[in-house]
């Protein structure tokens, strides 16, 4: 582990994550040049201390979602509530509970200015919830039939080896592959 760079402290990072860091301190962080070079490691510590489980966090990909290393092998997407979505290479949205707002009335629950609402002849509003805690994890406003978007597929091995200089023990070129369509194919097979 590299030497601690306290120009931006772990405590301030924790506050930033929690949304309680004072704006003046945030501005100092924005102006910090170069940035504190151990930020990622401090971030992992802060996050690991917040979640109620022990799987090793490899990367945070959303407010609630993490890619974690499982003890028995494998890398999965996991909610901070503990729900697991399976292999991180498959779009986690295919592991969610889904609600689709199709009508003006349904969209009006979250866009309360009637004149500004979306044209429901053209698009629907999809909401993706965690099946464990029912946190709203993702929103898409797309035409019906549009494939769900895989918002982020990190190149974890390149990140850890080439940018952090600390390669992961289970490196494999297959880790940077989108496996989402395999899940759709499995569903089609199951019927």
């Amino acid at each position, binding site marked *: 582990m590299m030497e601690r760079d306290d120009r931006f402290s772990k405590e301030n990072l924790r506050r930033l994550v929690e949304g309680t860091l004072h704006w003046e301190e945030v501005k100092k962080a924005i102006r910090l040049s170069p940035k504190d070079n151990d*930020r990622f490691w401090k971030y992992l510590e802060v996050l690991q201390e917040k979640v109620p489980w022990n799987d090793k966090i490899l990367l945070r990909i959303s407010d609630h979602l993490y890619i974690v290393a499982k003890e028995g092998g494998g890398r999965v997407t996991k909610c901070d509530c503990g729900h697991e979505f399976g292999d991180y290479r498959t779009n986690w949205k295919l592991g969610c509970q889904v609600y689709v707002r199709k009508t003006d009335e349904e969209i009006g629950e979250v866009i309360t200015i009637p004149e*500004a609402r979306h044209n429901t002849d*053209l*698009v629907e509003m999809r909401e993706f919830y965690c099946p464990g805690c029912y946190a709203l994890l993702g929103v898409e406003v797309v035409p019906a039939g549009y494939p769900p978007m895989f918002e982020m597929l990190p190149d*974890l091995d390149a990140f850890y080896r080439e940018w952090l200089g600390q390669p992961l023990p289970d490196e494999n070129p297959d880790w940077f592959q989108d496996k989402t369509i395999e899940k759709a194919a499995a569903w089609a097979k199951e019927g």
Partner: protein
Amino acid sequence: MGICYQGKTLDELVSERDQSFRETGHAYGLKELTLLDSDPAKFMRFQMRLVASCINARETAKLISANPMSIIQGELLFMLANAEGDVISTSYGLAGHIQCMPFIVKSLADLNFEEDPGINAGDIFSVNDPLYGPSHNADCYTFLPIYHENELVGWTVGLNHVVDVGGIQPGGLGSISTSVFTDGFTYPPTKTGHNFKQEKWWDLHWKRRTRTEMFNVLDDKMRAAGVVGLHDMIQEVIEEFGIDYYRQAMKEIIERERRLLINRVKTMAVPGLYNWLQFSSVNYKDTLGRLWPASNRNWILHKPAELHIRPDGTLFTDMEGLTSEGEFHVNAYPPAVRMLTSLGIWPMFAYTETLNTALQYMTDWNLPPGSMFNPQNPWAATTMGLGQVGGVIYQFNRNLSYAFFARGFLEETFPQDGAGSGYGVQGTLGDGFQWAGGDMALITCWGQGAKAFQDGFEAAWCGPNPEPDQGEVELSEFLQPTQLNIGRNLITDFCGHGKYRSGLEIGMMQMINQPGQALIIATYSGTTGMGGGALGMCGGYPRSNDVIIYAHDTNIREVVEHGGHYPRDFVEMTQMIDDGTLSVGSMELFNSPTPSIPCGDGDLFASTSGSMGGWGDALERKYDLVEEDVKYGWISPECAKTVYGVITDDNGKVNVEESDLLRKLLRNRRKERSVDAKEWWKLERQVVVDKKWHEDINNMFADSCKYDKFRNQFYGMWQLSEGYTLQEKVK
């Protein structure tokens, strides 16, 4: 014998630059930065002299202009390029345009301007034709070669957005055009002056081919004066530092910046694939009739962008699946994409001592030939391609925000979106005087999108212009007396909701004042009824739509005479209509750019601009933030209840116990009315199999499936057989 260094031709110089980068990976093949390393202070002094010269040129030259967009709204730029076309330093203003200059210089090389018409000291060149590097024809470039003895050593360049460019609609942000022939006054690279002075005939073109001769002739003089002034200042710099230093330092600035940008990406981001998506539309059906049969239809514009942050720190954006080019006004050539989207990169990581074209050495694009951002038709209409490219700016804001968030740099998250609303106006006053104008006031004051740690600020920024200013209403009204501003207001509840919300949308209300014989208004909007970016941030809601309303035959003059309240925005106008204090003969509502709408005295013109998306689950917003929102009127108690699950009393105080219970109920409602993803997939797949969608959506899917990448994604996700086909149907 060429005009460049060591007798090379311009074409040879540009080719050498490209080849040395390809072969070495370094700009100009520079593995060492000898001038910078040997005397950094001198190097910085040199660079600051260049920047100061550009700013000096801008601040002096703009005093010649009468165009409010130049004088008070920051829609101009002065820059210095080296002989190859790389921009080394700029003033502040319409910063994205630096990206066009390498393409413009390459066009001059390709066209062999060196031979004919010749590139001589004192020659002034002009261009706004997007086929040759500019972005759209309302953005007009004037540039001048810098010579040292007999060697071309650079270019000084002036650029601004003109009030009207002579298209079929007034202004420079048209909503209809079918080809370059209806775009308006579009000129390829042209030698328009010599001996440091524009030719007289050039004024006549502005007078005869655009609606706003006074503004445009003065703008042209502003640009010409600026490039001549900048030219003289750069000559002084060359004299002080020596030509060898100048030539080498210009290249070292680009290579130093390239390295810096790569390093920033590697420091703050996470490599991988990130996706952004936006839908928009063009609605010409039943508008253009039999005059342009190929344009008498609607299009849904599909704009996917996959950003690959590569392990080497460079950025590659793949837009395969993008809507094909069409006979509509929103095509754009690749330089326009490079130009405008750079505005999404600078605030994210490319903020350095001076804006320059180093980005071109670390960003790549796949813009499929034949798509709307790489049209193969040399006569494609592009008058408002930037309106659609504008959306793509924010793929960088969004995708890089996720990358920085994942790395722990939450303070650098800045996910944003595009918004409107500017307008063009054209009229004939009572005495027969014909005039035209335009206003971009609401394009200068967007609310920010929510960030990973706090709400976005209100009326705080502008995507396409880092140096925006609403300007002074009095000056706008002096120049456009028909547009009487009676109100501006931040609109309650009009934001992207989330754990952190965006800044509120700002509304503007104008009363049409004595237009005389005729007046039309054509308004630009950043949305088309499908919002902005299609994806929320971490469960936040994406932005909704701009609102533009023309209310005709109102009794606002009576309201004014009786000392009544004026509506400050469309929401207040609607409330006044409902409570009977305002009467309206008819109303036209748009969430999209509007056609040219005739307006009469006492009509009301309401527009809005600027709310972005929220960040995170709205049910997780802290109670004290909601309480503050309600206290200041940013969020209504009703919205706090339905969207945020927060109950407040008459004094705006949060009832914690009741709110806790309500949030629990709302979470339970999510559980009750959602289905598991497999069930949803089956339902959605059936829609695809049965093609149960709007004709315009059908046509969009049919078009995008012509491209392998999207076709594989679409067919794969819904497990469609090869026998499944989609055909475009245009009635």
